[in-house]
């Protein structure tokens, strides 16, 4: 019987974290996740702005209806992002692994690099699905507090929250690119304003 003591829970957690960090470095997944987080977060905010504009112009004055509308949209965006990107990432990384096997002349299944590829697919899919879902869920929060204000006020607060998210996202992009945070934030806010203006114009036109 082995005399080695089982590592403590903390030691196992630390070892697991070190393994994940190693997979993160091997798969070079940092850049891709930053890209997809920003892109899909922006998509999520603008889609939610569009749905909110549509609900407002359509005269939806039931807070519960708006929450259901936004949350179902959020779930659809989340599932679409997560599932689609998982399939794409898995296919691309599988191809890269096959090409590498042609150089090493050995199977790379069950190696660290294969596990890192699987880790990357899961992380990218979680970020791609999670970013728009989170963006939509945060935007809808004013409608959960309509005991404090009216539904009409909640709409404008939700628009405000969405633009606040765009500012934060822009600042994040500015930080990533090491350029002016405010310039990037402004660019994203302008994008959101254009989307909202077009939605209102379309709604008024149809109405």
């Amino acid at each position, binding site marked *: 019987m082995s005399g080695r003591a089982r590592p403590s829970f903390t030691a196992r957690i630390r070892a697991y974290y070190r393994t994940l960090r*190693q997979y993160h470095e091997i798969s070079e997944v940092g850049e891709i996740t930053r890209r997809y987080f920003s892109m899909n977060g922006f998509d999520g905010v603008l889609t939610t702005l569009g749905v909110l504009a549509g609900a407002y112009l359509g005269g939806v004055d039931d807070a519960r209806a708006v929450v259901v509308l936004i949350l179902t949209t959020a779930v659809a965006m989340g599932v679409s992002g997560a599932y689609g990107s998982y399939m794409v990432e898995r296919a691309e990384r599988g191809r890269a692994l096959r090409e*590498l096997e042609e150089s090493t002349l050995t199977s790379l299944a069950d*190696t*660290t*690099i294969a596990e890192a590829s699987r880790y990357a697919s899961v992380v990218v899919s979680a970020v791609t699905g999670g970013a728009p879902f989170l963006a939509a869920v945060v935007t809808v929060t004013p409608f959960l507090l309509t005991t404090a204000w009216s539904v009409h006020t909640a709409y404008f607060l939700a628009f405000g929250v969405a633009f606040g998210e765009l500012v934060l996202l822009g600042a994040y992009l500015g930080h990533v690119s090491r350029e002016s945070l405010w310039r990037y934030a402004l660019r994203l806010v302008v994008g959101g304003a254009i989307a909202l203006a077009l939605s209102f114009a379309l709604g008024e036109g149809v109405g």
Partner: protein
Amino acid sequence: MSQIRRLVLDVLKPHQPTMLTLATRLGDLEGVVGVDITLFEIDNKVENIKITLEGEDIDFQDVSEVVQDAGGSIHSIDKVSTGRRLIEEAETPQDAGARWMR
């Protein structure tokens, strides 16, 4: 049975995980006291390295598993030393002729 004291391997591996990671994992093996990895050749996908291990009782199976787990393949065992004392290759008169040909 005699223990392996020194092992020199010719290995082909992908760039990731790096030589640093491979050397650390080999150094953590029981029976291994020292590890040296030297880069011989590199291209855009793989690198050819020489791994030298020294210790009291090196388990080749463990070493092989670590190398394979890192995506590498052992092309050849270039040197092995066993016994209670590490000795170097003995010079013979034939070596001078072989060196001249090289």
